[in-house]
């Protein structure tokens, strides 16, 4: 079975590693991205980035950054779905994207009732949706829908905050009565959960919603359940934070980790606007839809299912984490990392093995050069 290609032609893994090393040597600023792999693969990717002085970022970090930026700038009350399932007596579902991203979460919340906490145990659960379309949910939960265009929701949440604080607001997308309904729904909760997809509202919109929940905690209990489109990007951001001190978008060009949310973003670097002149792209995750771009610069592709042998200058076919080999992956429902056993056996190397081999090879070359 062929597992490596150079310029679209089959090659031995050793020759492919050598060719990949030559590409990295020739580059001024490598980019290590994609990062669709498990914890071991992510660690190996960061080791390689440090070794070769690369910029490193997840390929889908743009979908995560409205959440990260709002959280680190203003703070956030965050809860796991399992905790909200047992505690929340009121659930406010904000926007349209949640219904598209995580219907299972909504069904779970609709089908269960709180059984923890003095204020909420046995109280039953009421749900309210604020968006442009109602969501059909199973179970006996009481669901109220308020119709509101997605792009007006940040304003509407601001109006709710103003009402809760006793300040006035002008005319918006919802009537005063509707704003009062939302404010009462939340302020009378024993424990309110606000479910939303930060990407739908951007950084300021997400900060507005986090601010609403912060305001609610002055008088009652509340938390948010942000729904993220790419849970592997969240895993990568957590690992990046405990490894480098920053949530992705890091450069090791000068040695120490340097963070810049704009300059070191993978989409900027991959678009050709950036400074990266060689790319290492990792796409080796079970169940993830492949998003490998057309590369504008020489590239090394480490993929479980490479689209074509000439998808990059050097291509490695590897095992998919959580499918072909055991992996530890971020699980949004659990709110942390979870071990996922392999579904099948595979002779293919892991992405981590290829990344480690590349890092070792480059370290050896560096020692020889010295």
């Amino acid at each position, binding site marked *: 079975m062929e597992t490596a290609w150079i310029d679209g032609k089959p090659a031995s893994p050793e020759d492919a590693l050598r060719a990949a090393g030559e590409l990295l040597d020739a580059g001024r*600023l490598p980019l290590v991205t994609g990062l669709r792999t498990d914890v071991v693969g992510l660690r190996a990717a960061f080791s390689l980035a440090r070794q070769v002085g690369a910029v490193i970022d997840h390929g889908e970090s743009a979908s995560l950054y409205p959440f990260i930026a709002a959280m680190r700038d203003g703070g956030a009350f965050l809860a796991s779905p399992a905790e909200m399932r047992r505690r929340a007596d009121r659930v406010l579902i904000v926007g349209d994207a949640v219904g598209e991203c995580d219907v299972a979460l909504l069904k779970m919340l609709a089908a269960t009732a709180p059984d923890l906490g003095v204020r909420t145990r046995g109280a039953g659960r009421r749900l309210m949706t604020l968006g442009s379309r109602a969501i059909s949910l199973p179970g006996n939960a009481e669901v109220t829908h308020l119709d509101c265009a997605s792009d007006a929701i940040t304003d509407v949440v601001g109006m709710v*905050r103003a009402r809760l604080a006793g300040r006035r607001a002008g005319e918006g997308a919802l009537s005063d009565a509707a704003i009062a309904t939302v404010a009462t729904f939340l302020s009378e909760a024993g424990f309110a959960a606000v479910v939303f997809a930060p990407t739908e509202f951007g950084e300021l919109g997400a900060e507005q919603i986090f601010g609403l929940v912060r305001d609610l905690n002055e008088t009652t209990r509340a938390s948010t359940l942000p729904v993220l489109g790419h849970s592997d990007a969240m895993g990568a951001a957590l690992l990046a934070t405990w490894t480098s001190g920053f949530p992705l978008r890091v450069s090791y060009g000068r040695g120490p980790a340097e963070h810049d949310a704009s300059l070191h973003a993978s989409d900027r670097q991959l678009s050709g606007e950036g*400074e990266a002149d060689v790319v290492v792209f990792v796409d080796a995750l079970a169940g993830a839809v492949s998003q490998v771009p057309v590369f504008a610069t020489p590239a090394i592709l480490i993929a479980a299912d490479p689209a074509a042998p000439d998808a990059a200058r050097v291509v490695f076919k590897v095992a998919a984490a959580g499918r072909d080999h055991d992996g530890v992956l971020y699980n949004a429902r659990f709110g942390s990392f979870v071990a996922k056993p392999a579904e099948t056996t595979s002779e293919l190397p892991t992405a981590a093995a290829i990344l480690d081999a590349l890092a070792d090879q480059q370290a050896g070359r560096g020692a020889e050069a010295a």
Partner: protein
Amino acid sequence: MTGLTFRKRGEPEERLDLSPLVPARLAGLSEREVAALPVGTSRMGLTVGDVFEVVGGDPSSICFAGGSTRFDRIGEAMQAGGIIVEGDAGARLGRAMAGGRISVEGSVQGHAGSGMSGGVIRIGGDAGERLGGPLAGEMSGMKGGTIVVSGSAGPRAGDRMRRGVISISGNAGADVGSRMIAGTIVVAGTAAGTPGRLMKRGTLFLCTGAETLAPTFLDNGPADLLILTVMARDFAAGEVGPVAFEGMAMRRLGGDTAVLGLGEIFLPC
């Protein structure tokens, strides 16, 4: 005595960190020592001498003869003196500067004047995103000083601004004055997005109007206030220069009531 000149040898292949090239850090260094200062941001280890021809002179007055959008962090933490850029500049121009003057003939990229507390920045072309704004995780943006932009500004100009003045002769990108804490922003053109989103205090003059206004800004009606005349005269006599709202009939809106609600936006009547 003429100033110290850094003449660009060619377009750099990587971003450069030019934060060492400020008057206080160059004082007392020989040309050779200046040429050996590291400015590269990749493993190539570029120094000043690789990128610039250094023509000696008084380091309190610095000139970059030829600019680039990859010239980052010019004038960072500058406390006194002057810097002129004959061309464009990259990101974080005048970041955290406390005094002195920076003048750029061309356009600059994001975070110009980020967290500055004093001094003057003049930008002949356009400014990128988050003019005067904080870097990720910082609690406040611009804390003092003056920024004058002859062209337009990118999104989120004046984000989390605490003190000082920003004047934009062209248009403002989305959400100018977002999360403002205090300070003054004057926009002669139009303001895109939702100006003043989450602002607590501070003043926005939007002299050609705004694309949208959040319902958490309340119209207080026409504001024929003496202070506007005084401010316009003071700006005209100072670093900012003549402002578009001088003599203009304005109305005042207060907000953002989603947060504290003590900010104000002035619009033409």
